[in-house]
């Protein structure tokens, strides 16, 4: 893996492939260790275990010859969890007090308020988790980061939500495109930014086709649309002079979901680590970065993201989400 000579003046990649070298047995051992020690330590070890699992999965994903690195710490997860619990307790207590009230209107109001509260927190959670995840990911010692702002994102998010509801869902291709576009444009690897040039209208035709075919295909067409959407997001993402490419197909996603479900069910859960790895492997194998990929010109960005807003996102972060490492 390691080159024998310095890469200071090595030619840039023409195509950067991603691959996953994780193996089931080590991941299973990590999961079992996490579960057993979490029981023994009344759940405290789970933060250490989750960090170890995440570090393993990140280290086993390679861009070219380089391993991704995960730098998040268990204490960050623990503190984030405590903060999230504190907020959830406030929601819970308010909701509980409202349910004690005899008035049905107060109960309905409480349910509405609960959902509104969750909706209001969504931009905060999405931006927070993206910023946290990226700021703890590195490649070749250079950190990823996000300059996304909660205020800007909230405007985009609520506007998109409003139009999606107003158009009975027909605006959702633009909504998803704008959300991904904003987060991608604000993603950086070191001092270099990612860019995004996708447009929602490209997804509108496939989206309408999916809606028409949902019932006749017993919803299986949604896998085709998910793959189409994923290809759209990746193919419109650039990094410097290089562009991402994604070849994932709906049938691959469908088979992955179906076979993973069988794998987990028939092994009584033991097969879960293999399901995670298979999924990660599919994501890696169907994505590449082509063009002039000159990583040697990337420098460390000295200003990091602030910690504010990251805490809630921490508890909602998805393990092994390699799309996050690409800013997608």
């Amino acid at each position: 893996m390691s080159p024998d000579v310095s890469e200071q003046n090595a030619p840039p990649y023409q195509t950067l492939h991603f691959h996953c070298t994780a193996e089931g047995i080590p991941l299973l051992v990590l999961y079992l260790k996490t579960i057993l020690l979490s029981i023994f330590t009344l759940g405290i070890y789970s933060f250490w275990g989750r960090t170890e699992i995440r570090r393993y999965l990140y280290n086993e994903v390679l861009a070219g010859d380089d391993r991704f690195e995960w730098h998040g710490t268990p204490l960050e997860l623990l503190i984030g969890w405590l903060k999230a619990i504190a907020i959830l307790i406030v929601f819970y207590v308010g909701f509980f007090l409202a349910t004690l009230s005899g008035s049905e209107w107060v109960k309905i109001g409480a349910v509405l308020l609960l959902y509104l509260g969750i909706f209001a927190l969504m931009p905060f959670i999405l931006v927070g988790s993206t910023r946290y995840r990226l700021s703890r990911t590195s490649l070749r010692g250079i950190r990823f980061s996000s300059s996304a702002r909660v205020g800007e994102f909230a405007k985009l998010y609520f506007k998109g939500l409003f139009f999606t509801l107003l158009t009975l869902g027909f605006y959702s291709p633009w909504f998803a495109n704008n959300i991904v576009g904003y987060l991608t444009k604000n993603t950086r690897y070191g001092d270099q930014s990612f860019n995004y040039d996708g447009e929602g209208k490209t997804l509108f035709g496939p989206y309408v086709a999916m809606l028409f075919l949902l019932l006749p295909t017993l919803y299986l067409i949604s896998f085709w649309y998910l793959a189409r959407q994923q290809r759209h997001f990746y193919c419109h993402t650039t990094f410097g002079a290089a562009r991402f490419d994604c070849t994932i197909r709906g049938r691959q996603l469908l088979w992955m979901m179906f076979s993973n479900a069988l794998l987990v069910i028939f092994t009584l859960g033991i097969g879960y680590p293999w399901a995670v790895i298979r999924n990660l492997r599919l994501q890696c194998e169907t994505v590449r970065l082509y063009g002039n990929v000159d990583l040697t010109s990337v420098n460390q960005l000295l200003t990091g993201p602030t910690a504010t807003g990251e805490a809630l996102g921490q508890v909602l972060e998805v393990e092994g989400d390699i799309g996050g490492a690409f800013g997608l």
Partner: protein
Amino acid sequence: MTGSYFDGRSAARQSVELRLAGEGVMLTRSDGSVVHWPFHSYRLQRSPGDRFLRFERAPYRGECVLVESPEDVARLLRQLRQAEPSAGRSKRIAAWLLLASVAVGAALWAGFPLLVAVVARVAPVSMEERLGRAVFHSLAPESSRVRNADAQRAMDRVVSRLRDAASGPYTYRVAITRDSMVNAWAAPGGYVNVYCGLVQRLNSGDEMAAVLAHEFQHVIQRHSTRSLVRTILIRTALSLTGTGGDGLFDTAGMLGALHLMRSDEASADAGALMLLRRAGLDPRAMAEAFARIDRESKDLPGALEYLSTHPSTASRIDAAKRAAANPATYHSMLTPSEWKQIQDACYSAPPSGKGR
């Protein structure tokens, strides 16, 4: 041994030679420059199965050396084990984790009952009433209650006499519900429910008064409030940690939450005997009532369940006899015909027999 060096400033990769020397790792870069990282100046990250090693310069800002050749990894680890002073970092973490677990366990064991007691103690009566009302309407809905004006009047007399003797901030609402269960329960804030199954096994208004006095004591001593608070806190914690906790607001969940401990029952018994005496009622009625239920209802699982957490019948009779200092001063609560009206109201109502 060779590795890849990243300086943490740019993503450029440099090849380095590694060797252990002078209480640290000596790095010779491709440009010929040599740097020395003492053991304490880096953190060693090992992958599962030791497929690679990463030396991260502390504080870590991206400067690191990655060794991926299996032979070099094995050789380096061997040398490090011999040369590096045992940092014992993982042992320290394990010790801290163990300590934290013991602390959390101890805090839960000792602190949780205290928290429950404090919350139940400081909860205002209005809050208890709201909580009790929610439970009462759920477990004893209007449609299941016995509706008979004569029986209601008789019950009101019993409740009124006990309430006057008890004083305190609570307004008591007592319902009789159509169910064959031999049971009664008290919800916070003064809401009490007696099932027809129990009414049919009592012999007099005094025995009914004894049962109510016992339930009122659960309200006065906030046993029901404490039990509900305990259940709510546990279920909320389980729900927040994603390990369960659903079902608090269903019937089974609420009935479970009203299940009291033996110490609460003993304390309610003691308070009930005093309350009966203050109300001018014979405390022995309580022991007689429970003795009859115990004797006649051995084949009823519901009845045994009701008695299971109560003090033994023998000790109750002893306590009641001790409490009944001067039996001559006690006056019966209801006439036999008034008591019959209550029982008849129950007999005429079709029992639902849904059980707990």
